[in-house]
C-alpha cells in the first residue's frame, strides 16, 4: 500500500505544478494580448516564474522517487 501511495503523491505534485504553470502561461498570454510590445519582457518573467514553480514540484518528485 505504501509503495503505491508514493506514486499517487508524485502524481499530485505534478498536478499542482501543471495547474500552477498553466495559470502563469494564461496570465502571460492575456498580458501579451493587451500589450504586444512588452512580449519579450513578459516572456522572460513567465519563464522565471515557471522555473521556480517547477523547482518546487520537482523537489517533491525527487523526494518521492529517491527517499525510501
Amino acid at each position, binding site marked *: 500500500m505504501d509503495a503505491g501511495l508514493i506514486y499517487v503523491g508524485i502524481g499530485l505534485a505534478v498536478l499542482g505544478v501543471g495547474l500552477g504553470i498553466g495559470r502563469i502561461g494564461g496570465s502571460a498570454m492575456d498580458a501579451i494580448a493587451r500589450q504586444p510590445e512588452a512580449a519579450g519582457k513578459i516572456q522572460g518573467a513567465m519563464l*522565471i516564474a515557471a*522555473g521556480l514553480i517547477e*523547482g518546487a514540484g*520537482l523537489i517533491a518528485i525527487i523526494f518521492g522517487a529517491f527517499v525510501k
Partner: protein
Amino acid sequence: MYKKHTFAEIFKVRPIMRLSTLKFFFFVSLLCFNPVLSAQESTTSSPTEEKEFNAVEMIMHHISDSNEWHLWTSTDENGEEHHVSIPLPIIVWKDGSFHFFSSKKIHGHTHEGFTLNHGALVSTEGLEKAGIADLFTGLDGKFVDLSITKNVAGIFISIAFLLLIFVSASKIYSKNNGVPKGIAGFVEPVILFIRDEVALPNIGAKKTPVFLPLLLTIFFFIWINNLLGLVPFFPGGANVTGNIAVTMVLALITLVVVNINGNKNYWGHIFKPPGVPAWLLPIMIPVEFLGILTKPFALMMRLFANITAGHIMILSLISLVFMFKSIAIAPASVALALFVSVLELLVAALQAYIFTVLTALFIGMAVQEEHH
C-alpha cells in the same frame, strides 16, 4: 548613478602565465584522459547469453558518480563485452597515512585493503567510509575517501573551460583597445546582463563590485556544468550539477556569503520583523530563523532536481527502444528525446539564471540599508 567602469578595468587579468601557455596546458591535460594511453579494457564473462536490459540500472549508472570514466563498450564476435574506460585515481586516508593508486588496481581485485563493490569503494578490512560528522566524533575504524571520481574530474574540466573562455576574453580587451572581438563579444552581453539586470537592481550600486565576481562565477559555473552534463561523450556526461553534494556546496557558499555580510538591518529583520505585533513574535522569530536555512536548501534541491530529472527523462526515452526490442519505436523515441534535449538546453541556462538571481536577492537583503 553607478559609475560605469570600462569592462577591462573591472576584470583586469593579473598575469600569472601567458594565454598561449594556458591553452597549451589545457590541451595537454586533456591528453591525460586519452584512452589509448591509460584506458583499461575489462571483459565480462558469459559470452553466449544476452543480458536482460535493465533500464533502471542503466539510468542509475549514468546518473551516479563512479571511480572510473566509462567511455564505451564494444561487443566482439564472441559476444564478450569490452568496456573501455579511463581509470581515475583513488586517494584514501587510512590509519594516519595516505594511499594513492589507480582504480585500475582494484577493478576486480583487492589492493591495499580496498576493492570496488558495484562501483563503490569498500574496504576489505572492515573499515567504514567516513562522513562529515565523523570529523567531530573521531575517525577510528573509518577511512576518508578523497578520490578523484568522475564528478571531480568533471568539475576540473569545467574549471578548465571557464579559465580558457574568460582569460581569452580578458586578453582580447587589452589587445584590441577595449573593443570586444571573438569570444569576448559573446561573453560581454551576458556579463552586462548579469550586472545590469541581476546584480544592480538587487544589491545596489554601492556593493555590486564586491559581489559581482561571485555572481558571475556561480552563473557560468552552473551553466557550463549543466551544458556539459548534456553531452553524452567525453569530456561531457559527468552529471556534475546532478550530484547533490555539488549543489549543496553551491548553496552553502550562498549561505555563508549572505550571513557573513548581513548587516544590522538584516539581523534586525530576522529577530524583530517590522510591522509584526508582539504576540506574533514567538512564531515569527523561529520561522525567520529557519528561513535562513530553508532558502539555500531550496536552491540546492531546485538545481539538483531539475538537472537529474532532465537526465532521467532523456535516458528513459532512449531506453524505450531497448525495452520494446524493436527499431520501429526509434523515430518516435529519438524525436521525443531530441525535443526534451532542446528543452534541457533551456533549463540549463534558466536554472543557472534562477540560482544567480536568488543569490543576488539574498545578498541584497543582507546588505541593504534602511529604506523607510
